[in-house]
């Protein structure tokens, strides 16, 4: 093959938008994009429309009420509890996953006998489905039949049935989420540590850098991009959890473990209040998008250089 023909083809690639190539571009990408628009974005718009109404499947009429439903939701005590719990859920879940994931990932990176086996084991909580994990945890703490609650009671712990206790239910569920999502972060940290070129360390060692200095000045800056993106991914996974709460407590006792996804489900499918459910969904999206954008904005220095 001649060099000139190669260059000719490359030249086509470099030329701006030719209408034929643009059409090809759409042909490749539109099937997936349309699928996403139809099944994800259309429901979002439908949500937005529903949220402006007082629709309830139990009432005969539906009328347009503007932002009234939003006001009702934001001032309702149940919504505020669910929202507050979701914020706690997000902050402590993500922080917990970050800390545990970083420590375990770093440990897995140190090459020792059994590190490969441990890597495979560590993935287990993430590989099993969330509601299976939730079932196991639920039965660990169910009164005197649960092995954890039984021994907690033995040592004099005040409320051994953790998931039935108003004080401990949310922390326990957050621990469960941390337990479940940490594998993702550990594998990510381990993989990114492996991508740090060993020459960096060798050079620093020659210059007399201590292990701590090498960690602060070489390791952290080199893996900061995967750390930033990995933490965002983690937070999105944390915010998506529904089954963990639904199969263990359904938001209870009372609403001490209610988070927004379970609140929305309850409004929509148990009370059949579709208008309020849609308004809550919209507030939740707004919350997630604001959080994600603020997060990306505050770390713009890290990811901008990759664009």
């Amino acid at each position, binding site marked *: 093959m001649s060099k000139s*023909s*190669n260059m000719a*083809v490359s030249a086509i*690639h470099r030329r701006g*938008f030719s209408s034929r*190539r*643009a059409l*090809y*571009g759409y042909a*490749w*990408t539109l099937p*997936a*994009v349309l*699928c*996403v628009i139809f*099944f*994800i974005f259309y*429901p*979002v718009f*439908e*949500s937005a429309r*529903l949220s402006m109404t007082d629709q309830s499947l139990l009432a005969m009429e539906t009328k347009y009420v503007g932002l009234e439903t939003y006001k009702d939701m934001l001032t309702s005590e149940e919504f505020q509890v669910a929202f507050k719990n979701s914020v706690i859920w997000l902050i402590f879940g993500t922080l917990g996953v970050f800390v545990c994931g970083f420590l375990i990932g770093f*440990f897995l990176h*140190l090459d*020792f006998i*059994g590190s490969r086996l*441990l890597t495979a*084991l560590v*993935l*287990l*909580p993430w*590989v099993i*489905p*969330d509601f*299976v994990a939730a*079932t*196991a945890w639920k*039965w*660990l703490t169910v009164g005197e*039949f649960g092995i954890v609650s*039984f021994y907690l009671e033995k040592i004099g712990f005040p409320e051994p049935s953790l998931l039935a206790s108003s004080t401990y239910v949310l922390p326990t569920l957050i621990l469960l989420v941390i*337990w479940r999502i940490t594998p*993702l972060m550990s594998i*990510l940290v381990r993989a990114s540590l492996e991508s740090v070129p060993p020459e960096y360390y060798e050079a620093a060692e020659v210059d007399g850098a201590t292990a701590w200095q090498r960690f602060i000045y070489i390791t952290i800056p080199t893996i900061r*991009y*995967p750390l930033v*993106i990995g933490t965002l991914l983690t937070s*999105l996974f944390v915010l998506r959890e*529904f089954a963990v709460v*639904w199969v263990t407590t359904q938001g209870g006792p009372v609403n001490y473990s209610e988070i*927004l*996804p379970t609140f929305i489900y309850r409004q929509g499918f148990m009370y059949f209040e*579709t208008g309020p459910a*849609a308004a*809550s*969904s919209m507030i939740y*999206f707004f919350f*997630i998008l604001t959080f*994600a954008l603020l997060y990306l904005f505050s770390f713009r220095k890290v*990811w901008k250089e990759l664009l």
Partner: protein
Amino acid sequence: MENIKKNKNIYRTFAFWLITIVIAFIVLFPVVWLFAASFKPDKETFMVPPSFLPHEFTFDIYQRILEGGTAKPAPWILNFFNSLKIALVTTVLTTILSALAGYGFARYRFPYKFILLLIILVGQMLPGPALLVPIAVLIENIGLTNTHTGLILLYTAFAVPFTTWLAIGNFEAIPREIEESALVDGCNQFTAFIKVVLPLSRIGLITTAIFAFLMSWSEFPFALVLIQTDEQQTMPLAMARLIREFNVFFNEMGAVTMLFTIPIFLVFLFAQKYFIRGIAAGALKG
């Protein structure tokens, strides 16, 4: 001097083993507790003090499950194959759609490409459970309530953003020159994609497929809302119904979970490498 060094090594080895055991314990404890229960007879699940490993080892529960399970209209095997069918079709659809889109995004420039990419990115951020109401209405309107087709379409749509993101990274890693030479040799863009690019990106494709399979295999909220009859239930749904009854036999739950987890472990055994690579790629290439 020699002695001190030797001692230091022993401490180091000891510390590593200790940390390994602690991590393995935390990770395994709840899982082993559940699986161990599947070999306990009914009375032992309600024993005080609770046993961790079965005192009396039995396979009765597995037999019970194969015969249909306690107070359950549809047999577990039916739920199992419902789930398997849905997960496999979703995997194929997702892999095809995201391979096409990933390639298109990696290789073509076209007007509004940025907007299409943004749709994919935001699509990944929106949590499915919060969209349950309008999605239930949408599926009802297109007449797919209580069908597996409805679930397959939804699972595909919700898997596609993440897998497309993986696919873009994969295709960008393949040098353009390779397919350019195929183009010069008389292939068109599509045959070049099929014959040259796809074989080169098979690791990426397998990663995509694994993710799609795992996502749809254990999905719960959509199935909860859309499936109404016992015969149509997927495994997660049937299992969750079992948990919500107060007088559930935990051993039966453990056994069903075992059955449910077999395909995941098979995937995991054969593809651990791709799995880890996939997670890493998802964040490293972003």
